[in-house]
């Protein structure tokens, strides 16, 4: 692992909202070209952490560095694709219009814009519904459109907050295949999830509970270390549950 470049470096990061501490002293390096899964129950602090990485929040203590530069920075934001937990879409516009708008924000125009839009819509299998208004989309379709928007400007780092919520198993599989393709292109992906079976598909995992990073490793390592057959069991062990 060490020969690989560090893409994201989280150093001594803590975050509190008033008295409520959401993240406690997190240290984590994520390497270029890996799919890193952040696993934990809702309310564990996953979203807060990825928001900080996307530049939407700042830690109370410590610092987050992307590509060896401190976040938040407008330069870095261009290199990141972010997909929020809630679908941030303009419902009164069509999918294509949403994509056009967001691609213009990243300076994509004309021919290049059209190509990128076709590409990402194909990837999330929405090409046939591009001219529909987003308000007529189902939950899963909106999720996929959000993903398409995050991929639009070909970012080097993708931060995806619960990308597969509300998506059926078949499509979920195809989306994870897409993730693998992106990884093959050399991109780095950070994916949060609380679905344990998705965790197995990540290269490495970080388990988060109550704002603490309780374990980091490949799924195999984590299972081996705890003598468990599933990630879920491993999580329970790290979380201090009786077995």
């Amino acid at each position, binding site marked *: 692992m060490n020969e690989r470049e560090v893409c994201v470096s989280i150093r001594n990061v803590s975050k509190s909202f008033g008295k409520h501490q959401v993240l406690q002293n997190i240290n984590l390096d994520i390497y270029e070209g890996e799919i890193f899964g952040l696993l934990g129950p809702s309310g564990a602090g996953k979203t807060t952490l990825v928001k900080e990485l996307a530049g939407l929040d700042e830690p109370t203590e410590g610092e987050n560095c992307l590509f060896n530069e401190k976040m*938040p920075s407008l330069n870095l934001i261009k290199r990141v694709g972010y997909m929020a937990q*809630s679908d941030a879409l303009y419902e009164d516009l069509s999918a294509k219009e949403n994509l056009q708008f967001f691609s213009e*924000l990243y300076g994509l125009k004309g021919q290049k814009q059209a190509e990128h839009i076709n590409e990402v819509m194909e990837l999330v299998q929405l090409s046939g519904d591009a001219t529909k208004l987003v308000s007529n989309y189902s939950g899963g379709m909106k999720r996929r459109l959000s993903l398409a928007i995050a991929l639009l400007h070909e970012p080097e780092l993708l931060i995806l907050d619960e990308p597969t919520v509300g998506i059926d198993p078949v499509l979920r599989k195809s989306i994870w295949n897409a993730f693998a393709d992106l990884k093959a292109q050399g991109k780095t992906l950070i994916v949060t999830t609380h679905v344990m079976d998705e965790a197995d598909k990540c290269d490495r995992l970080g388990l988060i509970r109550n704002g603490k990073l309780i374990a980091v490793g490949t799924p195999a390592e984590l299972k081996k270390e705890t003598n468990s057959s599933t990630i879920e069991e491993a999580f329970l062990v790290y979380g201090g549950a009786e077995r």
Partner: protein
Amino acid sequence: MRVLALVKRILRQLVRDKRTIGLLIFAPILVLTMLYFVFNGDDYTPKIGLVNVPEMLADQIATEGAQVTTFKTEVEAMKKLAAQELDGYLKIEDNTPSIVLEGSDPSVTGATMKWLQNAFPKPPQAIDIPEPMIDYLHGSIDMGQFDYFGPVLLGFFVFFFVFLIAGVSFLRERTTGTLERLLASPLRKWEIVAGYVLGFGLFTTIQSTIITAYAIYVLGMVMEGAFIYVLLIILILALTALTLGILLSSFAHNELQMMQFIPIVVVPQIFFSGLFNLETIAEWLSWISHLTPLYYAAEALRDVMVRGAGFGDIIINLLILAGFCLLFIGINIAVLSKYRKI
């Protein structure tokens, strides 16, 4: 350019939302039309009763402009008065005339009194003083209430509807998470505010032109100055409303809370904008009018529309309005730091 992308999107959304466009353009037109009919209705014809008035005198009373009925007894007249079929009656007892009025509506009471004062035959005067000639510096004998209120109301309705629509649409941007999504893109904070100002500004230009043209050319609102100045004032006022709406939407969690700003922020502006004579407002309160953008717009609009003022006369008011606008833009950018520091 990124700002243009935002402008394009805002206009696209507006065009698609036919109902909102209708509200922004036709609601002010509808309300102004109704006000036109309310203020420019015919003069009120008072209903007057005469009790025990000697025939000789009754013949001399000019009954023109009133509906006059004679009664034999006061009891009868009183009954009619209580049933609101009479506005007042005149009785003469022991050669002293006295008047009893219904008195619940001040404007009716005023009209009745005015009529009664003019109705009696004037005593022949010792020296014949000629009636004074009347000249108007501004306005004319034909200028009605509507012409005086009109410019202020025109400004107010544009202010009100732009404030509401801009506020709600920015609020939606926040609550649906798209604002956060915008901030996760390389868009700068000032670009977001600029996009909103330009997008809505373009639309407001069209809206103001239509409404102003309607008020002046269809309703015949008094117009002494140049149309372009009126448009300029309204446009700057609309931009002030827009930036204020966006700003206040940051302090609302939903549409209902946005509405709650109307009685606090919008309605008081009507009272302090000069719709009613400001000199009669208690002195300790009058400073408020200098804090309301509408006050400066109303002043400038009246100067142009009623007094035929030119650019030099309204420039100060325009600058103050623009100052409000810039102030709100500045605070808006600062407030957006809540979401992203840079």
